């Protein structure tokens, strides 16, 4: 009963925060509501029993999306004294009926899937029963890299494409100025970074390693590592440059290239594409993907093509 109440609270919170995010008066409040919505989503994932998703949502969905939105907001208010124009909501008589209709549609689909008598989820049961053979303890990592490797490969490609596209549409000043104005340096900042950054890197590596037998993995690890990068940018330790150096470029491509090369090797031996040759391949690809994901997310936040030592670096 208590747990059901907790679920009810989470659900009410989700709906309220979502409504506030799309309708609150100032845009800045909307961003804050959206970030809190993401964190509440992480709670919901934990309650549904999906800790991998909870971690990914907290780090990527709430943390990095929020950071990206705040940077974009800053670009909108830059150089103006007033707050950015936030026009009043459009008056649309059809909005409410359409919204209710689509909500009902989703509800009917979901409830009929939940309460249908169809034999559920044979793929999931097959994954769980073969988990012992492939020597991976985390079924989600197994699905991501062994059974649906093509999805994961394309996902890394999409992330890289999104970064390149964002660079391509960035205005003429993209990459010149930093996305942030570091506050005056105080002794506390250095001391804090000296503790937090190594801990963050440690947590990221732990998440990566843990991903093979318990919740965690390349995406969560990469997002945590990107958080360390965001902290370094905010404190002026590193700054964006318009053009990437060779190291950054290699880092950006590491995940995609290593996944493709290792995925192509089985073709030579007559096995299917992306049939990974062993557990070492899983670890290697996950490590490369973690680095690529972290660097891509950091560069998206910094709004530049490369990184250099910042003025406090």
């Amino acid at each position: 009963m208590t747990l059901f109440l907790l679920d009810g609270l989470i659900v009410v919170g989700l709906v309220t925060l979502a409504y506030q995010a799309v309708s609150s008066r100032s845009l800045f409040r909307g961003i804050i509501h959206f970030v809190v919505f993401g964190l509440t989503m992480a709670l919901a994932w934990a309650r549904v029993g999906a800790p991998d998703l909870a971690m990914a949502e907290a780090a990527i969905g709430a943390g990095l999306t929020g950071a990206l939105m705040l940077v974009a907001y800053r670009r909108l208010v830059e150089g103006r004294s007033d707050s950015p124009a936030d026009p009043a909501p459009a008056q649309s008589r059809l909005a409410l009926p359409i919204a209710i209709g689509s909500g009902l549609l989703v509800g009917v689909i979901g409830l009929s899937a939940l309460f249908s008598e169809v034999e559920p989820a044979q793929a999931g049961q097959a994954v769980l029963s073969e988990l012992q053979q492939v020597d991976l303890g985390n079924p989600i990592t197994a699905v991501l890299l062994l059974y649906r490797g093509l999805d994961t490969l394309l996902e890394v490609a999409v992330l890289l494409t999104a970064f390149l596209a964002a660079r391509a549409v960035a205005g003429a000043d993209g990459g010149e100025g930093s996305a942030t104005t570091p506050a005056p340096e105080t002794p506390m900042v250095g001391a804090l970074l000296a503790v937090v950054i190594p801990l963050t890197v440690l947590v990221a590596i732990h998440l990566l390693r843990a991903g093979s037998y318990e919740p965690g993995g390349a995406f969560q690890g990469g997002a945590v590592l990107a958080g360390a990068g965001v902290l370094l940018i905010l404190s002026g330790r590193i700054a964006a440059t318009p053009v990437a150096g060779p190291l950054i470029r290699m880092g950006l491509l590491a995940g995609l290239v290593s996944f493709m090369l290792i995925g192509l090797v089985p073709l030579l031996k007559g096995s299917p594409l992306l049939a990974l040759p062993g557990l070492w391949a899983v670890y290697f690809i996950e490590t490369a993907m973690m680095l690529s994901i972290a660097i891509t997310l950091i560069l998206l936040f910094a709004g530049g093509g490369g990184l250099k030592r910042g003025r406090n670096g």
Partner: protein
Amino acid sequence: MDSLGLYVLAAAVLFGVGVYGLIVAEHLMRKLFAINIMGNAIFILLVAASGPIQGSPDPVPQALVLTGIVIAVSATAFALALMVRLYQETGQATLSSRDDGDDG
């Protein structure tokens, strides 16, 4: 009703809120919130409606949603870059032409 049913209902309501926000909101960043909320509603639906196997949700939809979360943040980052560029070009971050764009 059990918790999974509750979350399926939440997904339905959230999707409705997202659609409403997408239609009503003028500022592009708010439309982005709305799209992300719709996406999150579908993620909850995928995991909750697939039902548990051996006590935890089906790993296949979980992996799909994990992929989806990363794709969502990629698309959001690209959309934000487009919005900032639009703002630099036109001085406003809306697509509306209701008042011929004179109120920004």
